[in-house]
């Protein structure tokens, strides 16, 4: 099946960004910044090139996994929703790993590198996902017998779903929807650098995974969200946004004592062998221990 739904969604992405720009002009002028938007869109364009170069290899790997498994589900109608839900679970596992394992974080960090949160931010997709071996999270679905074409289409639909939640235009949606689905409110929390929000809400489409696995936090309107990464880039340089963490890993591995070198690849972002840096867990603990926040926690 040679069908990529994301290709057909691109014109809608552009139109929605224009609509959000016009809305922001009158209602929220700080939502956009022209250089930030240029970087976001350039990263998005580059990711389509990276996808075109490596997409064939990912499809071939899925076909290989599907060929060697004794299981075969075929194209039954009920397999589609099942595949979509399980692909979303696979996405949750990938996304959580992308924040907790520095190797995967290096590929994912560019998605979080903007200090703005708007529809253009959604297009900051990875250039180096294939190099980081991110496709391994999809292989279990092929081993389980799902058709490779079905897995790729479901993955594309999941990516399309995640586009519209990158906005501050929508505050809250109906309660039943917020309870089950990933929404702009839930995903704003995910992009926040506020200590209490770090490494929360990894969901793609269904927020229920975060609720099941204990990583859910709801948005508190009293605590204004600040976006980006803990050590803000302070640059609109496209290449810096895409590759800075890979370079930082190389530098750390080079400088570290031999017995710690591998830890700079698989430990969480912010880990250091001499304790000179902070992980998100350490930042949250520091925040929890601050006197004013202890009071806040007790009161909430």
């Amino acid at each position, binding site marked *: 099946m040679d069908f990529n739904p994301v290709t057909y969604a691109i*014109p809608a992405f552009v139109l929605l960004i*224009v609509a959000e720009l016009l809305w922001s002009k009158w209602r929220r002028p700080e939502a*956009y910044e022209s250089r930030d938007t240029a970087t976001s869109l350039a990263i998005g364009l580059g990711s389509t090139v990276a996808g075109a170069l490596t997409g064939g290899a990912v499809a071939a790997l899925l076909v290989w996994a599907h060929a060697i498994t004794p299981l075969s589900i075929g194209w039954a109608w009920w397999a589609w929703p099942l595949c979509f839900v399980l692909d979303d679970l696979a996405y949750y596992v990938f996304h959580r790993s992308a924040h907790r394992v520095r190797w995967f974080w290096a590929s994912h960090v560019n998605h979080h590198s903007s200090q703005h949160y708007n529809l253009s931010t959604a297009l900051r997709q990875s250039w180096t996902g294939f190099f980081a071996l991110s496709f391994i999270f999809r292989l279990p679905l092929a081993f389980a017998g799902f058709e490779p074409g079905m897995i790729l289409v479901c993955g594309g639909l999941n990516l399309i779903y995640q586009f519209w939640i990158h906005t501050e235009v929508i505050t809250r949606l109906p309660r039943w929807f917020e309870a089950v689905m990933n929404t702009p409110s839930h995903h704003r929390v995910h992009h926040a650098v506020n200590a209490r929000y770090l490494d929360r809400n990894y969901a793609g489409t269904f927020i229920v995974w975060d609720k099941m696995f204990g990583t859910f936090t709801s948005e508190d309107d009293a605590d204004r969200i600040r976006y980006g990464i803990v050590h803000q880039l302070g640059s609109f340089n496209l290449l810096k946004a895409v590759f800075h963490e890979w370079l930082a890993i190389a530098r750390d591995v080079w400088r570290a004592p031999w017995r710690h070198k591998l830890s700079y690849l698989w430990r969480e972002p912010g880990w250091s062998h001499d304790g000179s840096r902070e992980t998100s867990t350490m930042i949250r603990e520091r925040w929890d221990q601050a006197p004013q926040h202890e009071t806040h926690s007790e009161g909430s």
Partner: protein
Amino acid sequence: MMDSQLLQFLGSLAAVAAVVVLTHFLGFTRGGNISDEAEARTLFQLAPGGFEPVEVALDADRRGAIARDEAGRIAVLMPHGGQFIARALGGDMRCCVEGERLAIEDSALGQKSVALNLGDAAQHWASPVPPAR
């Protein structure tokens, strides 16, 4: 196949250029402002490694700020487009006062430098101060 991919790329490139131009002409080019000292404190607290300011001074145009913590460490807020980034400075801070402006260079700022209009307080922030007790 190759032709359709090239066409798709060129179409996307044209759309990217059009949106960037639109963003510029709609006026999304102005820098951000720090509304007050409370916002500055919140932004300082986001500095990597943590920073709890005990003394804060805002730039006259609200385009930056400087702060000192209890241990005597200095941090600055520097503008980045419409947002701000907080950086705690290292031990190699170099200051220069020109009238009411304080210019700061530090390895933590990389190639960049920060210039703040602090009025009469510029000289105060340029001199090393022992940690507050």
